[in-house]
């Protein structure tokens, strides 16, 4: 499905941007897009199912992945998380929080010069391991970091 979307984006032509694609309706009523959203993964309540949905049932732990996140997050509604992958040809990064009601938080396909780096802010319901999954040259790597949460941020 990813490939299909990518092909559509390419079909939109060099000068067209994604925005133009939207405007022209090439991405359509978002049906193409919506079909590509990893619903089963994002709806998974178990870490194992979430990992399976992104092809990361098994991963190699890597010290070349850095998770920058606070040791203690006072507000679970806004936990800054940065993932830096020093693994060459990093093409995919996913962020998960093991103890969230739905562990899979975000996935990022990177291409055409995008470095192995994403920075965002996530909600965490409680103290949990944050896991980063990296795919590089088709191989799956991972790293984890514990973030202690003082006030959970899923309901608030």
């Amino acid at each position: 499905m990813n490939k299909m979307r990518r092909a559509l984006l390419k079909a939109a032509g060099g000068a067209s941007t994604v925005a133009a694609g939207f405007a022209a309706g090439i991405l359509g009523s978002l049906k193409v897009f919506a079909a590509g959203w990893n619903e089963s993964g994002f709806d998974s309540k178990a870490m194992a199912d979430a990992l399976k949905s992104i092809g990361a049932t098994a991963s190699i732990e890597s010290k070349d992945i850095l998770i920058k996140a606070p040791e203690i997050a006072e507000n679970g509604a806004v936990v800054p998380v940065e993932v830096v992958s020093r693994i060459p040809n990093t093409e995919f990064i996913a962020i998960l929080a093991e103890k969230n009601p739905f562990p899979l938080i975000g996935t990022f396909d990177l291409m055409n010069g995008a470095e192995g780096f994403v920075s965002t802010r996530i909600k965490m319901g409680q103290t949990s391991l944050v896991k980063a999954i990296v795919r590089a040259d088709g191989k799956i790597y991972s790293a984890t970091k514990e973030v202690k949460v003082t006030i959970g941020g899923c309901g608030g």
Partner: protein
Amino acid sequence: MAEPMKIRATLQGDVADVKVLVNHPMETGQRKDPNSGEPIPIHFIQFITATLNGKLVLEGQWSQAISKNPFLGFKLKGAKAGDKIVVSWSDNRRDKSSIETTVAGG
């Protein structure tokens, strides 16, 4: 109507450091309206994409666990001052928005 976004792209060497802020409630569907007690419907960004001079560089899929008013940072190697970056998102209600900027010299 979708709320505005902010974007900044700064060149550091041959890498553009891109920072994006989106105004979006990112409702989890687990909250209740404090006055009525009614559940607030789930409302969150599902897709966010970025292009550099029209070429796709980042394709993100999000859950409702990305924080309210999402922040996204990414880095683009080989970018040059003046290059055009467009970031677009769409949510589970089919709302969408996009913003563009040009890479500023470091």
